[in-house]
């Protein structure tokens, strides 16, 4: 739903892992899921530390 976030004017946007489990994935093993979650959260922290002038999407590496 990142285009919605861009449209309403959210300035720092990190795409997550899907509507029904934004910070997880039931198909992964628990440790892998937690690694995925950590990656997205760390990306969010990076976004908070970045200078932005307008809605910006920070793709996870």
């Amino acid at each position, binding site marked *: *739903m990142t285009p919605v*976030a861009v*449209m*309403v*004017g*959210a*300035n*720092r946007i990190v795409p*997550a892992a899907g*509507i*029904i*489990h*934004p*910070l*997880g994935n*039931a198909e992964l093993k628990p440790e892998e*899921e*937690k690694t995925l*979650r*950590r990656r*997205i*959260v*760390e990306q*969010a*922290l990076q976004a*908070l*530390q*970045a*200078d*932005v*002038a*307008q809605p910006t999407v920070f793709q996870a590496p």
Partner: protein
Amino acid sequence: METLRVVCFVNQFFGQLGGEDKAGTGPDVVAGAVGSARAVQQVLGNEGRVVATVRCGDNYVAEQPEPAIAELVSLVAAQQPDLLVAGPAFQAGRYGVACGALCAAVQAQLSLPAVTGMHAENPGVDLYRRQVYIAETGGDTARMLDEVRRLVALGLKLVRREPIGSPAVEGYFARGLTHNVLSENNAAQRATAMLLQKLAGSPVTSEVPLPTFVPVPAPARVSDMRRATIALVTDGGLVPRGNPDGIEALAATRYGAYEIVGLTGLDPDRYDNVHRGYDTTYVKQDPHRLVPVDVARELEQAGTVGKLHEVVYSTTGVATTLAHSQRMGREIAAKLKAAGVDGVILTST
């Protein structure tokens, strides 16, 4: 048929008290139609009688709107009218805002039909068009009688509970409310016709006005994450089991504040999810898939983040109105700011 009792509201100028020098005058009532209210009486003819004209200075209302409007509502009520006609205010901004506010107040508090009129650029239009029927007028009194005619016609329809036609036909500002009607053609036929027009390069009239969102200036970045307080917020519908705050599953007007003091994670047995816009099976199995308290706590313990804020804010983001979304966002932001939070991770589904 009984003659309708009409009360008019005018400002100091249109009430013949004086100009800007009299803008601070408090409210008064004069029997019958005075000043520009006489145009209303002329248009009403035998259908109604302006029993009183309520007057008030622009600055009196502008400086203390709530008490001023309350006083004016009482004065109107005392006349036991069937209809309030305020203005028209043309381009006069304070006057227009006062007209809109008074009409809204008598509708809400007295269940009294009310109507006003002003120019498109009058600030009263944007503020009150949703709640009040505002007839569109020019910038000055050049066509006042015609405009008052339109105003009064609208007012009479309201009193008689007759259906109000479209903004274009009746001459009022679109109230921005939607309402279902039955078209002659089905949507597919209309879409095909619209596409053919677009392909031919002709202008199309969309059946949905396009939304405009005001850009929000980006807050400055968090400069030192190791000393920053980060909060977690979600619109994914997380609630403690039993939903103690009664957060609605659809069109939420409420949000909850849930403490995570001393918790390294969210125990699925103690939480639930009320969101109706997606399959919540997975986030109920493991709430961290929505609100990453586990990872955030680890990052706090590792020193990557200075502090994880001890309150998680949550609401449901399905069919939430723009108005409530904005209000809840403002309220949550105010609380977070007051608590010294530097940054927020908002998980949205």
